[in-house]
């Protein structure tokens, strides 16, 4: 059996063990409601951060309107479950498809822009999505959508997170992913090496948007009410901070970023200003001293001791 495939299996088993432990603690009443909510938010944020990382970190397209796609997934999802009584899984998939299609439609023209122009354009698009939703009476307008069934639980978000992680990990470790990374590294050289840069930029954008849609669906069904105010560009910046903090181009980094940011947010929930000042200083200092983020392009599986253990388990010969 191929050692790469075995390693995947090992990772999956580790993932399931972690799931078992946490689920057990939840069932056993060892984790209170507050931390239960935060664990769910961490998983949702991991999906958001990893999917944004595919666009920003791996493909190098600076997008800061990710909350817009999350909003689409949320609203499509809640309409599907609340108004059409569709199963949760179908609602999530529908949300992902709609967000993905929107990502595709928006990405096609927008990704011609570069760097800071693209950043502002995506920010604007995210805001437009939010404002449009705010003006649709059918979904409650500015007041928000009420009466959402509480369908999200730890098992759902954890499963979705694992799927996202495996999808994006496998994607970036392939010729397709290398094409995206090549665009980030040097677009002109990538094109000269035969990479259809437009295609891969749009592909990354679409995949990223679709996963944000799933995260949105999970997020929305955690609460009784969602409103367009949950998806402002401040929310987008939150995801951006996770990605930048963890390392643009590292999945491990995004996971770590989502953890840290969610924890800080929870811990400082009653001091919102202090929390934001800390983020602000963290961003600035990071750019001064470690612009590549905590993990840079590294994955946890690349660190020698962990790699050795993994190799041993998966039976790879030295």
């Amino acid at each position, binding site marked *: 059996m191929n050692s790469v495939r075995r390693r995947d299996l090992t990772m999956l088993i580790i993932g399931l063990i972690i799931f078992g432990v946490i689920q057990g603690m939840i069932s056993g009443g060892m984790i209170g409601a507050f931390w239960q909510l935060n664990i769910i938010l961490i998983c949702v944020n991991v999906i958001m951060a990893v999917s944004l990382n595919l666009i920003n970190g791996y493909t190098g397209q600076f997008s800061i309107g990710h909350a817009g796609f999350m909003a689409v997934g949320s609203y499509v999802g809640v309409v599907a479950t609340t108004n059409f009584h569709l199963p949760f899984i179908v609602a999530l998939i529908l949300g992902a498809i709609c967000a993905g299609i929107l990502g595709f439609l928006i990405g096609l023209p927008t990704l011609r822009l570069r760097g800071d122009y693209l950043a502002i354009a995506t920010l604007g698009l995210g805001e437009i999505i939010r404002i449009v939703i705010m003006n649709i009476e059918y979904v409650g307008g500015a007041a928000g959508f009420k009466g959402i069934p509480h369908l999200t639980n730890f098992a759902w978000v954890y499963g979705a997170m694992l799927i996202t992680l495996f*999808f994006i990990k496998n*994607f970036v470790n392939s010729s397709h992913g*290398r094409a995206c*990374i090549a665009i980030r*590294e040097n677009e*002109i050289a990538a094109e000269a090496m*035969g990479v259809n840069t437009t295609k891969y930029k749009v592909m990354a954008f679409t995949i990223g948007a679709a996963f944000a849609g799933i995260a949105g669906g999970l997020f929305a069904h955690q609460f009784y009410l969602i409103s367009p105010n949950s998806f402002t560009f401040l929310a987008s910046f939150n995801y951006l901070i996770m990605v930048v903090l963890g390392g643009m181009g590292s999945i491990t980094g995004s996971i770590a970023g989502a953890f840290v940011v969610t924890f800080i947010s929870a811990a400082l929930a009653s001091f919102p200003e202090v929390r934001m000042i800390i983020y602000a200083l963290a961003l600035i200092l990071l750019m001064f001293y470690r612009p590549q983020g905590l993990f840079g392009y590294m994955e946890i599986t690349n660190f020698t001791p962990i790699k050795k253990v993994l190799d041993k388990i998966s039976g790879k010969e030295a």
Partner: protein
Amino acid sequence: MAENKPLLKAEDVSEVFGGLKAVADFNFYINKGELIGLIGPNGAGKTTIFNLITGVYVPTTGDIQLDGESIVGQKPYEITQRGIARTFQNIRLFSELSVLDNVKIAYHCHVKYGLIETVLRMGRYFTEENEITAESLKLLKIFKLDEHAYEVAKNLPYGAQRRLEIARALAAKPKLLLLDEPAAGMNPQETHELMEMIRWIRKQFGLTVLLIEHDMSLVMGICERIYVLEYGMIIAEGTPAEIQNNPEVIRAYLGTESMN
């Protein structure tokens, strides 16, 4: 003549930038298997010619044909897929990636496995990935870079970066290789080795090569035919010996005008 159709042919190609003619009525051909040099003073339009051939620029007028088919208007990646690969004057490596990954990326246009096979890790994914890695390592060995395969490209010494760019271009499996100042910044020893390497890979890979170079020892040493460009126009064509003694070329390089 029919069986000896040129691999690449440019007919009356002109390129105008904001009213200025960067290239004017450019005509040339390269036969299969040739090693051609393109030289000329600074700003003569040499790199512009490369950019026209590789689709970075679209000619204002004229036609460029590869194997008898026009490639005008095609995107750079399409032209690469058709068999033209290049290096850059100011090295454009994927500098944060490993040496090996730099080469692996260039196999991109030959990969057949699709998105679903990628994500679910099935079918051709493993066989093709293994092949790519093996072939990349082989290429790196040819360019004496195999020991650096897992180093980050930007940490390589300058001469090695130049070699890596050539290795990467070869990974795209081109018929025609364009080298833009491959010896720039190299010392004479490195230049000499590079010369040998270009000769060798041409034979080994059955390549046709077009190179821009300022280092005359290299150009005169390995090119079979040389085109000389000045102000976007070809002023001379011939063998190295002919070019070195061509009064037009000497004028272009040294200037004839003198104050006394």
